[in-house]
């Protein structure tokens, strides 16, 4: 893992980002504004096409009156801050044990084949970045990946490829389980509570 940061052109919050940043800073007592460093880095990252450049880090440091090295420390400690440019769509495939047992290796393979890149790389057209992440917290729908804050669940190689194809075509594929399944209800249909209790039974 690299901890160095990339030079880039200048950075400054937009008015919308500023409003968000101020809301976070207001949560802390006066003089403790540095506590807001993590949300501010997130705001900066979202504004800066999904990654933190050197100017982003220095801007946040200046915004919170803290030395840049302290912000740099935070940005390198947490893996959700990205320190290099990423594609427009970042595909984060979970490969932790439950997903792995349910075939996350196939998902990675499908992504790599469909995109023509390896994990950690970005397609030459700058559209996609493929990343491996630790537990996404959706084990019940394993295997999963997340793209743009949306979870795609119950994947297999075929549905994964279809999602990528749809994204490439500019469509927004349906998030959630990619098999016939209602959210995280049992995949083979309900096993209990199959019928609604008779109305008169309620509260009787």
């Amino acid at each position: 893992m690299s901890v160095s940061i990339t030079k880039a052109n200048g950075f400054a919050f937009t008015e919308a980002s500023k409003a968000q940043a101020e809301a976070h800073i207001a949560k802390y007592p006066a003089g403790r504004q540095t506590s807001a460093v993590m949300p501010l880095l997130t705001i900066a990252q979202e504004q800066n096409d999904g990654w933190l450049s050197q100017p982003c880090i220095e801007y946040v440091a200046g915004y919170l009156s803290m030395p840049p090295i302290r912000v740099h420390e935070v940005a390198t400690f947490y893996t959700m801050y990205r320190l290099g440019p990423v594609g427009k769509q970042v595909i984060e495939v979970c490969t932790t044990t439950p997903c792995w047992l349910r075939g996350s290796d196939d998902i990675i393979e499908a992504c790599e084949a469909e995109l023509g890149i390896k994990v950690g790389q970005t397609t030459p057209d700058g559209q996609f970045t493929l990343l491996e992440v630790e537990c996404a917290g959706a084990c019940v729908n394993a295997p999963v990946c997340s793209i743009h804050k949306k979870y795609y669940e119950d994947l297999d190689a075929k549905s994964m490829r279809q999602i990528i194809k749809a994204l490439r075509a500019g469509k927004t594929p349906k998030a959630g389980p990619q098999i016939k399944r209602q959210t995280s209800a049992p995949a083979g249909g309900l096993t209990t509570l199959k019928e609604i209790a008779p109305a008169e039974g309620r509260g009787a």
Partner: protein
Amino acid sequence: MPTLTINGKEITVEPGTTVMRACEEMGIEVPHFCYHERLSIAGNCRMCLVEMEHSPKPIASCAMPAGDGMVIYTDTPEVKKAREGVMEFLLINHPLDCPICDQGGECDLQDQAIAYGTGKSRYQENKRAVKDKDIGPLVKTIMTRCIHCTRCVRFATEVAGIEELGALGRGEDMEITSYLERSLESELSGNIIDLCPVGALTSKPYAFTARSWELVKTETIDVMDALGSNIRLDARDNEVMRILPRLHEDVNEEWISDKTRFHYDGLGRRRLDRPYVKKQGKLQEASWSEAFEAIATKLNGLKGGELAGIIGDLADLESMYALKLLFRAVGSKRLECRQDGAAVEAGCRAGYLFNSTVAGIEEADLLLLVGANPRLEAAVLNARIRKGVREYGLKVARIGPAADLTYEVEDLGDEAALLADILSGHHAFSGRLMAAERPMVVLGAGALQRRDGAAIIGAVRRLADHFGLVGKDWNGFNVLHGAASRVGGLDLGLTSSGGIAAILDDAASGKAKVVFLMAADEFDMAKLKQAFVIYLGSHGDAGAEVADVVLPGAAYAEKDGLYINLEGRVQEGLRAIFPPGDARHDWTILRALSDVLDKPLPFDSFGELRAGLIADLPHLNQRDVAAAAKWGKFGSDKEPKAGGLGAVSSGYFLTNPIARASKILNEVQDLANGVPREATGTDG
């Protein structure tokens, strides 16, 4: 007061004491890497584990406050096993390249691995490797050796006041670096070399030049500034290889400035190693007798007033005293120790001392800097002020040009007339000064060197009187000198009316026919062209260039001598090496010269000279004490003229002949001036 039991013995300690300190009070050593008594507690190396009754796991003793009724064991098999486990983990990623490591022989990890390391590694995998960082010309990094104790990060943040170092990444990927690998911009950065418990941060100039066990160690006093830091010169084969700080709680704690640490290569460069006499407008090598004859011929028939002497910043008391006696013998009193033109006057001792004492800064609650930049004039003292601000609630205000001192300073403005404002009570600061319990005023070079410096000193004295800065057990009047010889020279009364400016003017007009320079190089030499100049010093600097006779003297590392620091503390410097070539200790030269002049000085040995000196200045008998000086009247009664106080010259690292001869310090100064740096030969 909690009472706890350690290894079966009871001990009562102050509340807030950690278990480790309690152990140390009982004489039990607890191994540790990250803990350092002058830094905040990190608790991340885990080497200090001890067993505590009722605790399921061993505890980190450096971070655990001692509690009443605690039962601690430090010598059980459980403790040993825990520490061995920590050591094994530390060594997993440590390269074990001790044979090629400069820390070898004085390495905490090496020492403790002997006690807690196993002879064999169970680790079969590849060790991690970390890229070395370039953090400047002074500190060499071999980051693979780093054990992530973060002492350097804490030092930079807390003591030096430069938040430039940090730990990036996490877990196995953690790396210590400066922001974007920039050079450290601190005058204290060399101290992280001492703090590093392993060989990750070592001295770049010292790299691969010597091993710690082959060095002869001499405990002496630093002369780079007036603080009188306690240092140790490590020498081999008559060459000083490195300089380390010694612990002195009241002076430098355990820090020294980079100028002190790295000037040593200047001791061997540009040295005057034989006498020279100017013949046909050119300095030519000469014998001692030729040189003395040339002086005797010139002094013959000279009236006392036509001979003047200027004393440099690095002179020891004995040399100054010997010169004073020689001058008296030939009938001149015109000796001047204030070559920078500072307006301090001999006489009332409290008028030129740092009366609050250095340690006293921690007791003060309000500090007013007048034309002072302690960061440049005495970097270690500045760290003490920072400590006062951080830990003891000291507030700092300033009259003088703004500069970053690493702590918060309230700028009152760069205007000398503010002193009168404050005195009159109309200024907002007056009330605060009146209310403060232990207020301090520090006069720096910018105030002392102004043309009406005496008026500023007088104004500050009136301020001190009016606002009660001087009391029974507190004296808040402080002069921040820059020269190691200054207080000694003033104690010896080596001042002349008109100061250096008058001497230079007289030399230019021909009134002063002979000027004797005792390693004095810090003024405009052009005015000395008319005069016959005798230069007694160690380095071929500005003074030697204009000299008619050069007498090669000894640098401070080459002679025993007494120094008085800015607090008035008498400290003894010891000889570490011998002067090069024909160079001699200054007093022997002056004694020999007095014979040629047929006015033999009344001493034949260094012991006799020192005895005479102490007879004249009995307070020299009291070593290492900053005794309170009697308050009195000094300074001018005139009001200081309106206008700004000058900034301290920017060439911080090059303020004396030794420093200017040092390649290392020249490189550091270039860096500070923004000159781009090339990789040095010691880069890996």
